[in-house]
């Protein structure tokens, strides 16, 4: 269950040291934008040593430099032996990119005696072309675990003004989400970039959750708890979900063809949603109904 993904700059020893203490479900060790070109070599070695020495207690994502740069292969070669849960390729614009990455991962896994296919991919989609190709990217490899929207580069590519309200990325959010769900994978929302605006962060995170995203990235540890809260079911939602499931069980027991709760018919989408809420609550160890 990944609600929050916290970016950690790959060449910052202090942040790497405490990367997993902020409550994020996943950390993204960044070799790309957070590292200047003259420090790429240093970051690769530092990240390698940190992952080996610190045994992070979260899901581990490593963000690598894009295909077509001098750093792409060096990054992959350095990070595959670390057995991260996920690789996050950047500026993904089409399915060929993901096919190339998947093949290279297989080759590096073989070279390092690792189980093939274990490392999954979370493509960062941050160009207009990438958004248009989102579904094909999602289906390009079995390794693709979820799509991730990067709104800063994307809005620059659109020549749009980036706002806190995010109207300019509504289409991209919808497109990514639809592509991901159509491919039966996860969808992760772009970070909220004002680190001092926690109210704005909560609003943005709730919007992403209401739209259907699985989770959201954070560029500051201060945003992690707000994101976790937004992507966790509330007590009222959990209680209602249990009521739905119990009403359904009761209906089956009594041989009813149709079941209603609080004067409203319970149809399949409501039951599916209730099952998801209960499952999420169980994973997160949130309070359940006493009659469970």
């Amino acid at each position, binding site marked *: 269950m990944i609600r929050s993904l916290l970016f950690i700059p790959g060449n*910052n*020893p*202090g942040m790497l*040291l405490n990367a997993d203490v902020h409550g994020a479900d996943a950390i993204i060790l960044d070799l790309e934008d957070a590292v200047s070109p003259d420090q790429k*070599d*240093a970051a690769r070695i*530092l990240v390698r040593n*940190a992952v*080996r*020495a610190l045994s992070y207690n979260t899901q581990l994502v490593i963000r690598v430099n894009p295909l077509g740069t001098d750093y792409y292969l060096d990054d992959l070669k350095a990070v595959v032996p670390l057995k991260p849960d996920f690789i996050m390729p950047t500026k993904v614009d089409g399915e060929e990119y993901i096919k190339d990455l998947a093949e290279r991962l297989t080759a590096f896994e073989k070279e390092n005696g690792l189980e093939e296919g274990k490392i999954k991919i979370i493509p960062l989609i941050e160009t207009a072309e990438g958004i248009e190709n989102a579904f094909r990217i999602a289906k390009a490899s079995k390794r693709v675990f979820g799509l991730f929207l990067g709104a800063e580069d994307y809005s620059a590519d659109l020549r749009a003004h980036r706002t806190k309200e995010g109207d300019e990325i509504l289409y991209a959010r919808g497109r990514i989400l639809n592509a991901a769900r159509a491919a039966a994978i996860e969808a992760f929302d772009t970070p909220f970039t004002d680190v001092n605006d926690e109210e704005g962060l909560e609003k943005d995170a709730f919007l992403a959750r209401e739209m259907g995203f699985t989770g959201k990235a954070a560029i500051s540890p201060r945003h992690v708890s707000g994101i976790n809260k937004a992507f966790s079911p509330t007590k009222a939602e959990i209680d209602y979900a249990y009521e739905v499931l119990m009403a359904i069980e009761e209906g089956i027991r009594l041989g009813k063809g149709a079941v209603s709760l609080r004067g409203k018919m319970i149809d399949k989408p409501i039951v599916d949603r209730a099952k998801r809420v209960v499952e999420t609550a169980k994973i997160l160890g949130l309070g359940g109904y006493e009659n469970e």
Partner: protein
Amino acid sequence: MKISKSAAAGSMESNDAMILIEPGEGDVEIAIESVVMRQFGKQIESAVKSVLDEYEIDDARVWVRDKGAVECTLRARTETAILRALKEEAK
């Protein structure tokens, strides 16, 4: 192996270390300046020395300015400095 070009890695930020490696005078010399010299001087030297040994470097002078780096950071910065020096040499 002898280091024949100078190179540096790291920073003076807290939790980091700045490592400067340069040509030596026939053996390995390590000079350390650290905010925790008294408590961890020996461990810092041993971390730096072990990376030099991995690269079989027996002739170099290494300056370490430590700002509270943990061992994996010291080792990473030392390795980066070595690789940068060797890359300069290969140019």
